[in-house]
């Protein structure tokens, strides 16, 4: 009897290790995560508009139907990226996600304080390699450091009423995500 209890206890401890291991490995092996889903339709380093979520089809679960949205799937191996998003009439936000869908930065129209949200996205290494003086002369340049080389930028504009959705969609469609020269 004691023997079986000990075996069950040992099994439970091993189970704890199995649990932690699966939790940690899961994001690396997931094939249906947001990045993988969007990778099928979104080209690299360009803005792709997402269709509005509908009951029978949505690009991702739990999307907010009040927003017009687009994504820029980026790859920084060739160099930094320039992003510009015109501000829509109600609320516009730009959120940055790593390859594993972790949000590491977000900015909205009020924080940007301009008609256009303009940002430069680069890896930590690319930021370190930037000439010092260039950093100073462009003090008002907003530079975002990406923890991973690839990832996603979600560009979203709110339509406060259903009738304003076309306006929000136009703002999102005018967003640009290109390699910096």
């Amino acid at each position, binding site marked *: 009897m004691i*023997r*079986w209890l000990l*075996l*069950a206890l*040992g*099994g*439970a*401890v*091993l*189970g*704890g*290790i*199995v*649990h932690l*291991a*699966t*939790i*940690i490995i*899961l*994001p690396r092996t*997931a094939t*249906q*995560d*947001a990045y*993988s*889903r969007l990778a099928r339709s979104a080209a690299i380093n360009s803005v792709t508009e997402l269709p509005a*979520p*509908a*009951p029978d089809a*949505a690009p*991702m*679960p*739990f*999307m*907010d*139907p*009040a927003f017009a949205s687009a994504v820029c799937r980026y790859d920084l191996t060739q160099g930094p990226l320039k992003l510009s998003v015109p501000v829509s009439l*109600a*609320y516009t*936000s730009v*959120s*940055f*996600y790593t390859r*594993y*869908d*972790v*949000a*590491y*930065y*977000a*900015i*909205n129209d*009020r*924080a940007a304080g301009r008609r256009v949200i303009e940002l430069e996205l680069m890896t930590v290494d690319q930021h370190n390699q930037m000439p010092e003086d260039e950093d100073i002369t462009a003090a008002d340049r907003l530079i975002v450091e990406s*923890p991973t080389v690839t990832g996603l930028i979600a560009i*979203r504009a*709110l339509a*406060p*009423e*259903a009738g304003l959705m076309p306006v929000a969609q136009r703002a999102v469609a005018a967003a640009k995500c290109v390699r910096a020269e």
Partner: protein
Amino acid sequence: MRLLLGSLFALIVAAVVGLGATYLALSRGAAFGPLTIGIWTAWPKTGTIEADPYAHASIARAGRLPTALGDGVAFTASADDNGRLLDGRCDVVLAGVTPAARFWTLTLYSPGGELVANSINRFGFTSQEIVRRADGSFEIVVAPRANPGNWLPTGGIERYVLILRLYDTAVGVSTKAGREVPMPIVTVRSCP
């Protein structure tokens, strides 16, 4: 033979405990640092670079992009104030006020995160669409059949979740705006 049986038993226990705990944790969307106000729960940390491994795993499994904390914070309710799971065949009333935010949206999803089909193509409300009382409070009726005022159709599905997203808000960011902020209360008015 006894050794073989014994180790097999231990391995089966390990598999059941380990995978069972992972499944439970992911199906409940567990993560550290939940912010619970009444029936509403948010995980502000999940929308930051400091998200914990449980948050990473449940985001990857659901296939969604979490709301970044700089963008807003998303509160989920899957039960009413008495702790009963929300049922799409009942008339449920959501009433009160929301915390300070530039905009908010309230959306109804199936537990898997799909929008629910209905005759008027309404999947939620934004803070500007809502009809309010003179004091700024509001009432939304979440029900399968048409209701006067703010009607959010359930399509008659058995289980659903409500997500209240606050955009450009201090809730979840600053420590002062914590548990004392007002959130709408959810009560069942009638059930067939």
